[in-house]
């Protein structure tokens, strides 16, 4: 019985009923997908998606949402924030363009992430129009994200490649585990910032594309279909990627906020005014500081 249907499924790919609408999901692939669901040789994406979505994603998101702030709360309580002198010179690090781009992306994040969480925990909010509204906001604010992420990538990418300092930085976790003001090995951007950059840009592109796929749902890209990936499997893969990556982005987003707002007192001002405290640069971006010194720019 089973083998018959597998056989049918294989042939069905090439010779299916016409008249079925041109839909990429409910059209001629429908039977092939039904017969091939969770069968040997299939991608098993439907099953994995069901498993992940029903069992893992919610707890993971919840874990990150609660765990990361909790960890920081402990960090704040035990180690406390870094406070740098405001008396020394200020170093101009972010141009107006940098700051505007960052602001737009910040706004989009502030919209996307909470609305995304509302969707993930939709049952908590009771579904319905509020969650539906969040879904729409989630989709529309992606446009803001797109217009900020592209210039951001090009304006910072040259400093974002891996450097020997990054490994050292990672070994000492950026020096955040104590309050010693020992210079931390880092260039203009430290390893943490670099990770966040790559996750936000490349990860962002992935989030945008998977999100767009899920948003428009019923379309057909020949290039993907030519790899033998059905539309429904593309959507399943998109959902898995979107949610898994979402966990990472949420985590680093929380880190980013904690760093800029709490862990380093006043760090947020640099993104408003463009100036960083000299001491902050000297300690947290020591290689960059050295470089500036050599160039006699300070």
């Amino acid at each position, binding site marked *: 019985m089973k083998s018959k249907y597998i056989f049918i499924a294989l042939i069905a790919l090439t*010779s299916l009923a*016409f*008249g079925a*609408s041109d839909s990429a999901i409910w059209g001629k692939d429908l039977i092939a997908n039904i017969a091939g669901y969770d069968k040997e040789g299939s991608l098993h994406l439907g099953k994995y998606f069901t498993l992940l979505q029903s069992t893992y994603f919610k707890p993971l998101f919840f874990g990150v949402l609660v765990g990361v702030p909790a960890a920081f709360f402990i960090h704040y309580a035990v180690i406390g924030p870094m406070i740098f002198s405001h008396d020394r010179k200020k170093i101009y690090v972010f141009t107006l363009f940098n700051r505007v781009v960052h602001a737009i992306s910040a706004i989009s994040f502030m919209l996307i992430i909470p609305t995304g969480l509302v969707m993930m925990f939709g049952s908590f909010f009771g579904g319905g129009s509020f969650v539906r509204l969040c879904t729409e906001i989630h989709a529309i604010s992606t446009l803001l994200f797109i217009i900020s992420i592209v210039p951001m990538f090009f304006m910072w990418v040259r400093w974002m490649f891996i450097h020997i300092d990054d490994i050292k930085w990672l070994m000492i976790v950026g020096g955040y585990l104590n309050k010693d003001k020992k210079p931390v090995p880092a260039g203009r951007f430290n390893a943490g910032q670099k990770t966040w950059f790559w996750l936000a840009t490349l990860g962002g592109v992935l989030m945008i594309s998977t999100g767009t796929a899920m948003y428009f749902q019923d379309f057909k890209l020949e290039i993907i279909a030519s790899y033998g990936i059905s539309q429904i499997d593309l959507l399943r893969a998109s959902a898995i990627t979107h949610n898994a990556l979402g966990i990472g982005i949420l985590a680093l987003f929380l880190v980013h906020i904690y760093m800029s707002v709490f862990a380093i007192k006043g760090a947020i001002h640099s993104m408003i005014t463009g100036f960083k405290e000299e001491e902050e640069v000297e300690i947290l971006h020591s290689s960059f500081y050295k470089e500036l010194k050599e160039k006699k720019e300070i």
Partner: protein
Amino acid sequence: MANTWGYGAMTNSLGDIQNAKAIIIFGANPAVNHPVGFQHFLKAKERNNAKIIVVDPVFTKTAAKADYYCRLRPGTDIPFMYGMLHLIFKNGWHDKNFIKDRVYAMDEVMEEAKKWNPKKVEDVTGVPADKLIQITRLYAQSTPGTLIWAMGLTQHSIGSSNTRLAPILQLALGNMGEEGGGTNILRGHDNVQGATDMCCLSHTLPGYYGLSDGSWKYFASSWGVDYDWLKGRFHTKEWMNKKGFTLSRWWAGVLDGKNGNDKIHNGGTNLKNLIVMGNGITSIAQQAKVKEGLDNLDMLVLCDPFVNEAAILTDKQDDVFILPAATQFETSGSVTATNRAAQWRNKVIEPMYESKADQDIMFELAKRLGFYEQLTAGMKIKENKKDFQWPEDATDEIARIIKTIGLTGWTAKRLKKHSENWHMFDEISGRGYGEMKGEYYGLPWPCWTEKHSGSPILYNINRSVAEGGMGFRNRFGLEHDGVDLLAGKGSAPKGSANIDGYPEITKDNIEEVLGIKLTADEKRRIGKNWKVDTSNIIAEKCMQRGMAPYGNAKARAKVWTFPDPIPLHRESLHSARPDLVKEYPSYADKGNHYRVDTQYISKQTEKDWSKEFPINLITGRLVNLNGAGMENRASKYLAALSPEMFCNINPNLAGIHGIRDGSMMWIHSPEGTKIKVKAKYSYAVSEDRVWIPFHFAGHFQGEDLSHKYPNGTKPYAVGESANTVTNYGYDIVTQIPETKGGLCRIEFA
């Protein structure tokens, strides 16, 4: 069919197919065309392990459910059936007693069958000899077997021969008049049987009475009008007796032989006015000619619930009337299903918008033309009424007049009772329970008297006449060439007073044949013969004696009045096998064929059509559309299932012409016309043929005519009509168009 044994109709019923042990289907696709009827085929498979054999040029959905499938070259059903008969006679599988007692001239068929050995059949039909042998053995040895056909068999220039050879095959096997046997023609539209019985036909009056003076006189008196008045309505008296134009060739009547069209013979005039009621005339072969005909009319009147696409097709600028007719749900009346059983169709709602029921349109026109009183007089006769009630009085009028097919029992009261109590009947036999005991559902005709049970299985001698039994009809005389045409000894229906063959009953022979004595009063009231006996004394007396009013005769395998007394194979006018055309040429041209000179051999030999047009063109139906599709394309759900016209084409054939799946292609016909359709790859057709559905209209030769629809009446799907490219060719007897055996040429568009 009628010329073989008396009546041209489905002999058994759909439910009865469940009794069959083998089912052979020629040129029919019940899974698509009669899906609900097809459930009985599938049940036969489960109940009896019946084998389904499909013989068809394309692999249909019916074939998908069949046990055996033969891919036949279009138009070669006769060689195939002769191939079967050849093997049947050779192996002695035929029913010798049945043939001796109940069939005339089977020996001549045997002679012809000898010519068709399996090798030869393979050459002509394309069906492998082994397969033919296998199928014939199976079919001949699984009795009872039922034979199914539909338009795939009839729509040929040799259609009438096809429909004669199929019954001969059943007669040879003794499969007639049995439960699970019979020749079962699946009718198309819902009331093909009823409308045909009422003879909306140009060659006969209602009830197949013909056009003779006697018939006209019978009808004049039955209708309550003066015969001379009726005669005066006609051009001259001789035109009363002449067949009129047919649906397939009326356009020739407009064109009057001009521009090289076929000549006509029509009372000194060409056609000026065309009145159409509920007929998708865009589904007629050679649509370009239909358009030309429409363009040259004085007036075109179209009555339909939807816009008849003839109004869209024509370029005529003036005097095109479209009248909103009510649907059948907005009026009531009886409807005859394919198995000759009537059902009462109740009115569901009042006509919507400004629509009017067909009869009201007719009555209004008759008033204005001055013959309303005459038209409706017949309804008032029975009870001598002042006024009539539609449709009950019309039903009763029909029951009063139509004796030939035994509609006497079809009174409005009985038909209504049947439909109201449809839950009291058996699915397979149609027998009634409880209150309806002793009657068959829908009173399948012949239903001889107002108490008769109806006859679910024609020519069944295992039942008494009162319960629907009968022999073959005595219609063709008592003897021919010295051979007795009455049935053999002992082959009368059960319980008959006369156990042998006997002639049809007339006033003169009734006492002798039935062995009774009539009273003086009966003698005064009785009609001349059983067909015109409005007193119904003949039928009543026959019932008492267990005898059928139409006699008990032999079926005839030879129809001596036809061009081919024994059915012979003749290639289609446009044949893909020029070598076979020489061997099996078509008929000589026929003058004045339903008032039109019609070409056969001259068309066939005009040139070697297959050189320029090498591909067989086959038309067919889709499950979601019906006829010209006018009604169904107006439903958004049905239209969505097939939103556009397409052509089934084998990928290998398409590849040669550079046609991709889903791309557009042209189909050119030998008539010089063409259509542009979407190609759909399908393995259902082989590489030498293409298949197109015929339900679309609204496009013409690549041009979209949608803008011609009045506002808000455009159906949800429009497309090219298949009949723009169907070929010239008409049956020699009935003039049915040859839409299933044409040729075409394809190219990438």
